[in-house]
């Protein structure tokens, strides 16, 4: 009994640790892009990126309120604090266009990533 529960804990531990492992952090981004948030809008609101590449996106929030970058199609969700910065890794994306929004200001904060 004691033995089995130890074994099970080991399994749980392995599960949690493997979930955490930075398997390929050496996989550097191919391209680095920048974007700002100002008056609850993204600038530029349209980003043209090469398809099938890893992209590092730096976002700076110039507003006095926080924003949440969210994209269902690119699977991203990240808060950018008021006056703060955030880094988001995108891709590799198949050719196509991918919407993103600022979830806290969805009416004005809208944008598109176009992968070609």
């Amino acid at each position: 009994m004691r033995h089995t529960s130890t074994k099970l804990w080991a399994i749980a531990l392995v599960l949690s640790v493997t979930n955490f492992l930075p398997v390929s952090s050496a996989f550097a981004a191919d391209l680095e892009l920048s974007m700002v948030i100002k008056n609850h809008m993204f600038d530029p609101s349209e980003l043209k990126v090469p398809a099938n590449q890893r992209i590092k996106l730096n976002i700076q929030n110039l507003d006095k309120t926080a924003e949440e970058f969210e994209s269902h199609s690119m699977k991203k969700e990240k808060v950018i604090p008021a006056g703060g910065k955030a880094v988001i890794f995108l891709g590799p994306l198949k050719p196509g266009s991918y919407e993103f929004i600022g979830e806290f200001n969805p009416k004005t904060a809208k944008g598109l990533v176009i992968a070609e």
Partner: protein
Amino acid sequence: MFGAGIIVFRETLEAALFVGIIAASTRGLVNRTHSLSMGVALGALGSLLMASMMGHISDWANGIGQEIVDAAILTIALVMLAWHCIWVSNNSQRMVQEAKQIGSATSQGHQTLWALAIVVALSVLREGAETVLFVSGLMAGSTMSTGELISSAFAGVALGICAGWLVYAGLGFIKTRRLFQITNILILLLAGSLASQIAKTANQADWISVFGEQAWDVSHLIPSDSITALVMHGIFGFDASPTQLQVIFYLTAITMIWTAARQMKFHNSHHQGFNNTHKFSVPN
């Protein structure tokens, strides 16, 4: 005004559904209400703290501090849920028996209540911090009056809690024996959902960049931002367009927990069987 309430509702919904399922799965445990309320309260307090620290957190580790905190929260919650699943499969029979014998309260389950209270706190913390940032943002720069703002935020939270309560009440119609079977499956799926979110976080932070391709996309049938998608996400981790890595993590977590729980159950029944035979064969 309406829009703000809806955003608060969307942020609250996931945590509320989570708490609803956990509350249903612990029906009849002594101190349950106390433990889970503590979890919600601590989570709410923590979310105020986390929201106020978000600027610092974001700057950690070259801009991926949020992902580190998120992954830590998700992993702790996942381990706690795994522990609960294994514990329940080990004790469910006793729980059902006791619940029947002494009405509703059962003295079993202190440990798992702790585990679940932590899960509840972490779930509230994660969603709560975003809500706090959103509402405080509105307060700082909005044309809305404070009264309007507070009432719409409360309406959003109240609506979210109603949804969580509906799930809880719905599960309440199930008989005790079946209830634990069903909530155990729901909790197993929630564990899968957490694992899938860990995969998403790991990709976003660039820890794992393999299997980042979309596994499927049904967002034209069920739009990702629809209430249906949100509710299904809150209950079993539905994702309209997951990456391959998310699917792998989801299935791996479920399979591992299920196998571990089953092994435990098998081992125990085997053990008990052995003891009984042994007792039986001892001459008086």
